[in-house]
């Protein structure tokens, strides 16, 4: 493995409060403070003038569809999309086919990851058997198999009693629970946010109350049981308020927001475009602003993409019948730069924090830092480069992106995992 000398980058490392033009040194897959003169002379130099060098991005919420739905995505293609988006660590949801509610399926994912992945792909296990919300999954054996969290993403546990037991049982293993907050009784048949727009379009509305109620329940159970609870893809202004008040009281709870909920509102649904159909649904301008405010003041801890691939023929349907979800990995950084940095005046360091150190902290992952001795996962990006995103030419196996065909600003140039360049200006770098 070559020794690397990344030169003249704007180095942003939120954990070290570093934000200055400088160099990064990488040896044996790890960051080092400096290199001996001989090693420096022999190092492969990367001229990063004009680029930002930050820790490899971390995404707590992706769907890589393997096993069982490999027509949509695989660990090979999904991890390449991640690398192209600057992500070096991603956390996979367990709603595969079969669902990852047992050690065998986790082992399968781990084997496929070792064989096919170009970034670090970490599995989660189900909260309940079959994601059916009736019986606890075997957290002990899931943990031994390597899951980093538990979640029934997409199928929120409806029984408060079962959720309480899940919290208590998971706490024993110090496993975080990631919950998709949705009261199913309030969202029967719903396909978009409930409001003026759903009324106009005649589509079944999904009230934000369905999210708020479960967010409130989870705050209560997190406080009651002391479990580590993480709230997935928060979309509602009211929910942001619940989380803010809970955190002010010291409740140990964390939450994420997606780039698409920051970028769009339900106004985007005017032509029934299924590229904007997702769960939770796009909401109103007030909700969008509340999410941005929540990220600004730390109520919401991190960004997560909810990268959810579906084939063209699955999405190309009547709005009611199309599946929920969109791609996110290859566009997340550019969209976040646009919405948070350029439009909302977040410092660039804060954006990097929200995409690196914060998500790593939530699950306690060894990522999100440029500190000496840490794994040399790096994202090098040009915050000003304009590029046209062609989802069909992307690395994901699917192309269901609302940003398809748009010109975005801010592009990843190089992605390094454990000191190896895995993505270099549009190309995945094959292993030696």
């Amino acid at each position, binding site marked *: 493995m070559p020794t690397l000398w990344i030169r003249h980058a704007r180095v942003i490392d939120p954990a070290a409060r570093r934000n200055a033009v400088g160099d990064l040194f990488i040896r044996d897959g790890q960051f080092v403070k400096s290199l001996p003169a001989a090693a420096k002379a022999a190092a492969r130099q990367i001229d990063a003038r004009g680029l930002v060098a930050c820790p490899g991005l971390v995404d707590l919420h992706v769907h890589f569809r393997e096993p069982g739905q490999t027509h949509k995505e695989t660990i090979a293609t999904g991890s390449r999309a991640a690398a192209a988006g600057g992500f070096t660590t991603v956390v996979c949801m367990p709603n595969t086919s079969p669902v990852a509610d047992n050690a065998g399926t986790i082992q399968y994912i781990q084997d496929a990851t070792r064989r096919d992945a170009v970034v670090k792909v970490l599995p989660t296990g189900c909260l309940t058997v079959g994601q059916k919300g009736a019986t606890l999954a075997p957290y002990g054996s899931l943990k031994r198999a390597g899951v980093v969290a538990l979640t029934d993403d997409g199928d929120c546990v409806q029984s408060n009693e079962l959720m309480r037991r899940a919290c208590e049982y998971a706490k024993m293993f110090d496993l975080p629970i990631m919950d998709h907050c949705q009261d199913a009784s309030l969202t029967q048949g719903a396909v978009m946010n409930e409001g*003026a727009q759903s009324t106009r379009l005649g589509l079944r509305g999904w009230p934000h109350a369905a999210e708020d109620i479960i967010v409130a329940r989870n705050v209560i159970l997190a406080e009651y049981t002391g479990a580590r609870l993480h709230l997935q893809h928060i979309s509602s202004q009211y929910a942001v308020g619940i989380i803010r008040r809970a955190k002010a009281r010291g409740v140990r709870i964390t939450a994420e927001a997606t780039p698409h909920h920051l970028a769009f509102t339900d106004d985007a649904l005017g032509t029934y475009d299924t590229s904007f159909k997702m769960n939770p649904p796009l909401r109103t301008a007030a909700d969008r602003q509340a999410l941005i405010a929540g990220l600004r003041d730390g109520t919401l801890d991190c960004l997560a993409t909810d990268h959810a691939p579906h084939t063209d023929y699955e999405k190309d349907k009547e*709005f009611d019948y199309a599946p929920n979800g969109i791609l996110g990995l290859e566009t997340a950084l550019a969209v976040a730069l646009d919405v948070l940095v350029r439009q909302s005046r977040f410092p660039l360091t804060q954006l990097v924090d929200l995409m690196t150190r914060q998500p790593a902290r939530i699950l306690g992952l060894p990522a999100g830092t440029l500190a000496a001795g840490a794994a040399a996962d790096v994202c090098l990006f040009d915050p000003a480069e304009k590029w046209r995103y062609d989802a069909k030419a992307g690395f994901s196996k699917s192309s269901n992106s609302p940003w398809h065909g748009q010109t975005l600003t801010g592009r990843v140039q190089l992605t390094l995992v454990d000191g190896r360049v895995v993505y270099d200006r549009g190309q995945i770098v094959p292993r030696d």
Partner: protein
Amino acid sequence: MPWNRRHLLTLEDLSLAEITQVHTTAAAFKRTLTRSVKKVPALRGKTIVNLFLEPSTRTRMAFTMAAKRLSADVISLDSSSSSTTKGETLRDTAQNIQALQADMIVLRHSAAGSPLYLSRILNIPVINAGDGAHEHPTQGLLDTFTMQEHLGRLQGRKVVILGDILFSRVARSNIHALTKLGAAVTLVGPATLVPHWFTELGVKVSHDLRSALADAEVVMLLRIQHERQASGHFPSLGEYTSMFGLNKTRASWLNPKAIIMHPGPINRGVEIDSELADGERSVILEQVTNGIAVRMAVLYLCAGGQPELVYAGPDPS
């Protein structure tokens, strides 16, 4: 003004001038309906496919009748006879219909937005015959046509739409047409079926029948579906009728010249008393008849016909 629209998808998209054009064209076609020979050769040689993926009696028959009066050939497909039951997608079904050289598709579908979706796939005109809870544009056109026959201009006229508004495509199309024609629209019904969001469409929302009906010149009733009770939108049909059913006493609150409308099918004794449905103020069957003329106008215009040819045209018989 020439007619430039190939599809009829919504009334929200239509301008006031276009709505007026349909009405004027429909009035001309309506005169042909009472002749002994009722056919006109306007669409001779054209084939219209009625793709009805949701049950319908009135709308489908009226579209069929309208197409036949225009001398078009008509093929009707419903969900039980189409390949959708074998899992064929709407896209594939519609593309096959186009490949079979149909000249126009009339679509009824339970999914809102599906006519727009088809219009973007196909090269032939798509006419929306009702899409989910979204719109039913020809119904809105025939309802406003009927109102104008009785009241003249609708500017400033007080119109009440009463019943299950939330799930009603008829209500939405009427709201768009009526607001463009300048009518003052009030939606009435239980709060669960008339959410406040509708005010953003430029209409009033009320849950008080008496004040809403006071001096109204039109009351349009919408069918109360039994399944809404099971889904908890109101306690019972009996309670609905006691609160919002139109009976003789409540009809007396209306303007003395008011007309009573209903797009059908009627639940007698639930949303309307039988004597009112059959009474002299009821224009329910006129709506049905006007439905033929309005749909003739829509099919004719969207097939490329120009309105002035119909107004001025010689008697085809």
